[in-house]
């Protein structure tokens, strides 16, 4: 179980010497509790404290990096079961399956598709992260040949070598030496040989079993052979089993610190019906998968899955904010009034509700103030005349309106003069202080 701030504090030197870069030992302890600092920043911790804290702070899901270079994927490090408790850390990787029974041209085509899959969404680059090369032929030579094609056409993309045949694995893994591939993998029948291959080639070892009991026994044995980095598959293929097993694995790791299951999860969800596959993807993404293996990567499907992954892996604890933009309320005409407020969701909902009540079609410019209310944002220097002027100018709302008039919240009446200075040609009108007076205010304007 994770320790609380005060519990950690009791183990620290309590001198408040600031050498760790924090104002007090307690502040440092709180950061440690939130895993936002590491113990080595304090030069004076006792050995005993190091021992206790070291154990408590080891991540329950083992961190590891899959692949190498700028396309490498980080996995593991998760600390919670529900995203509202704390951010989910490392977004799951999407891998597309390529069978070695395909022609070289087909393999090359899919590899290229993977390379071209990258899109930009709200400032993040999203892509199909990996290729799962399946030894469908059962032939070591074919797998190696396919591996070479993939290595050439999708250079740098992390690869899963999907075979239980040790010779095939050995042949293919050489193609990705130093690239930290993942060999999937080890089973009860072959794990000793596979463990040696993984060790010799510094590969991550995928471990497959049927059921969690068998899986934990297997990872325990493999760990005994000196392989630390594993990715686990409980054998779940149906939606129901995926939820059940993934949940039990993550729960065991986080709540019981059960090491044999403290590894990233791989889910194979390939289906004929691509949309159905996407929906299984939803389950894998939301329920703890670290790698999701797909059979096809149509653009529409990628976009949907990328977006969901992005949504699920955002930080849930920043204040609720609305997107910065000019919102139409009703169907505004050029002569409709223009209001401005901050993007704290409570503020937005109250103000837009009152404007709606007034039944006067309007525009409401909502400015990004990091989710602070009007007065708080003003107090913190985030809702200032120059920032408002810049936002209004950049929003381009000017071209949609007949008269350049901006209605500001009554609480920041003090800003009206300076906004006028900074927005030449605009008239700044001070609205009422409380939003509930907006309908009357609009009525009085006629």
């Amino acid at each position, binding site marked *: 179980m994770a*320790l609380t701030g005060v519990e950690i504090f*009791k183990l620290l030197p309590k001198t408040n010497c600031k050498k760790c870069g924090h104002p*007090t030992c*307690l502040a440092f302890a*709180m950061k440690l509790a939130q895993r936002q600092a590491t113990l080595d920043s304090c030069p004076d911790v006792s050995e005993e404290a190091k021992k206790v804290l070291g154990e408590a702070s080891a991540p329950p899901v083992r961190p590891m990096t899959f692949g190498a270079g700028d396309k490498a994927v980080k996995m593991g490090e998760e600390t919670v079961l529900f995203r509202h408790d704390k951010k989910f850390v490392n977004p799951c990787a999407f891998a597309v399956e390529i069978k070695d029974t395909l022609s070289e041209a087909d393999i090359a085509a899919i590899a290229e598709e993977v390379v071209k899959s990258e899109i930009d969404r709200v400032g993040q680059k999203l892509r199909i992260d990996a290729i799962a090369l399946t030894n469908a032929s059962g032939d070591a030579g074919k797998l190696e040949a396919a591996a070479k094609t993939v290595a050439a056409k999708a250079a740098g993309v992390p690869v899963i070598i999907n075979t239980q045949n040790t010779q095939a694995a050995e042949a293919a893994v050489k193609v990705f030496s130093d690239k930290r591939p993942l060999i999937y993998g080890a089973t009860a029948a072959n794990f000793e040989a596979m463990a040696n291959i993984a060790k010799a080639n510094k590969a991550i070892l995928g471990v497959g079993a049927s059921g969690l009991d068998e899986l934990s026994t297997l990872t325990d044995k493999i760990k005994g052979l000196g392989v630390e980095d594993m990715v686990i598959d409980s054998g779940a293929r149906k939606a129901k089993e995926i939820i059940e097993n993934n949940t039990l694995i993550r729960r065991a790791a986080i709540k019981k610190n059960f090491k044999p299951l403290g590894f990233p999860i791989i889910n194979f969800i390939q289906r004929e019906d691509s949309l159905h596959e996407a929906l299984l993807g939803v389950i894998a993404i939301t329920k703890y998968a670290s790698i999701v293996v797909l059979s096809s990567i149509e653009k529409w499907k990628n976009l949907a899955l990328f977006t969901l992954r992005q949504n699920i892996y955002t930080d849930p604890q920043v204040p609720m904010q609305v997107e910065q933009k000019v919102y139409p309320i009703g169907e505004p005409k050029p002569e409709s009034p223009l209001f401005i407020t901050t993007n704290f969701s409570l503020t937005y909902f109250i103000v837009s509700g009152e404007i709606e009540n007034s039944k006067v079609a309007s525009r409401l410019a909502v400015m990004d103030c990091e989710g602070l209310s009007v007065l*708080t944002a*003003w107090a*913190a220097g985030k809702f200032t005349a120059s920032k408002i002027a810049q936002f209004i100018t950049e929003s381009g709302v000017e071209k949609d309106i007949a008269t350049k008039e901006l209605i500001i919240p009554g609480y920041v009446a*003090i800003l009206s003069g300076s906004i006028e200075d900074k927005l030449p040609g605009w008239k700044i009108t001070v609205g009422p202080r409380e939003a509930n007076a907006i309908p009357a205010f609009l009525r009085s304007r006629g």
Partner: protein
Amino acid sequence: LQYLHTVEPVLTPAVRRIVLELTPPSIQDNTGDLERMKRVLHEKGIHDMEFSHNFILEMPVILRDAEWEVCLSYTESHEAIGLSAFCKTKHYGVAVDIGTTTVVVYLVNCADGTLVDSGMTFNSQMRHGDDVITRIVYATEGGGLQELRDAIINDVNDLLAPIVEKNRINIEDIDSAVISGNTTMTQLFWGLDPSSIREEPYIPTVNIYPGWRAGTAHLKINPQAPVYTLPNVGSYVGGDIVAGVLASRMHKSPEISLFMDIGTNGEIAVGSSEWMITAACSMGPCFEGSGIRHGMRATEGAIESVKIEPSSFEPVLGVIGNGLPLGICGSGMIDAISELFFTGIIDQRGKLARDLSTDRIRTGDEGPEFVLYRGERKDIVLTEVDIENVIRAKAALYAGVSVLLKEVGLSLDILERIYIAGGFGNYLDVDKAIMIGMLPDLPLEKFSFIGNTSIAGAYLCLLSEKMRREAEETAKKMTYVELSASRGFMDEYMSALFLPHTNIDLFPTVRDLYEKR
């Protein structure tokens, strides 16, 4: 004073006095004046006294006039600041609390620790804004720094002048001072540009003030008097809170206590002798009467208690001074809202029940309102907007407490004592404050209302070196949590925006009473 003795029996003001009998010089004993004085000091065990140029300028005359028997005043850091012919028994100091709204001055006899006189006035910086932010903006953008500084210094001097006159005190005899205030107030007092307080990452210029002199401060007391400023913790937790903690003594107790100063900002501290964590909840000044339609401070004419008859909805009011009500103060608002809630006149969101049959609920300029008092010239009402405002403030306070406890991983029941400071006059009904969800639902005997602790802390520091050291240690120990950067604050805040709280199980006594009703 008695209280002072319980925490620190020895008076150790910042300025000490010592009688020195110097052997007059002669042809044989031709040591210089200063060396002569030092010799005697050595004999008394003082080896490192510092002497300023000014001091030396006047020294020879005084020595001779006094026929070599003098009284030396010096600071605790061993700087000579005064020399006189005979040791005056009179020896004074001033403790000053600079609040955003009010200024309080204590004139204290440093010889025996007694309070000679006190005075209080409104902070005349109010002209330039009710709250610290407006004043910071005025100081920086309006170029009003000097003006704000002068305003506060004049307030203090204006308070002192009549006291000094009335008690026939020589201002030279007031030779030490202590200032306690929030970070912005002390920075303005010393003429320091406060702009960085408001801007990210919210860093004050000074946390631990050097021992500057009254002359530098423009205080009209002995210009050489050292002025001790209570140290700040951060931009929004200032020396006034350190003073409060000091006065509560929670920093000396192994038990975990909670301190809250319910002023404009709502600062809180949780901790024990081992550790302490603190935050500013940014409540807003509504409990001081600001931003409330008929709000006022807890002075004569303020409604400070309200009882509402459940069947007729008629209120019974308690007014400070027992005269006609002029407005409503913080305690009155807490009382009123708790009663309105309990009698079903407002719902848990604080909205007035428009369908009740009473003409006390009506629609005013700002929307629905409840008439507390029908006056001949003016009615006194509590509007829905006022109620919302109070709910926001109490929510911010409660959420701040929850978040602080969560940050360190503790729960409410761990709290052994809760100290409440603030300008509620002499009355705060803890029961009612719990009822509206402003204070945690804990046994009443755990709460103590300790009034204006900023001045109390300043008073302690004036008289005791130990207290001054404790203040500094405490300030260093206090871990400041920036609520706006804190995960989970908004969530706690939203759930506290309900009467008493969205999660009624946190308020078992309120729940039981409510169900019984």
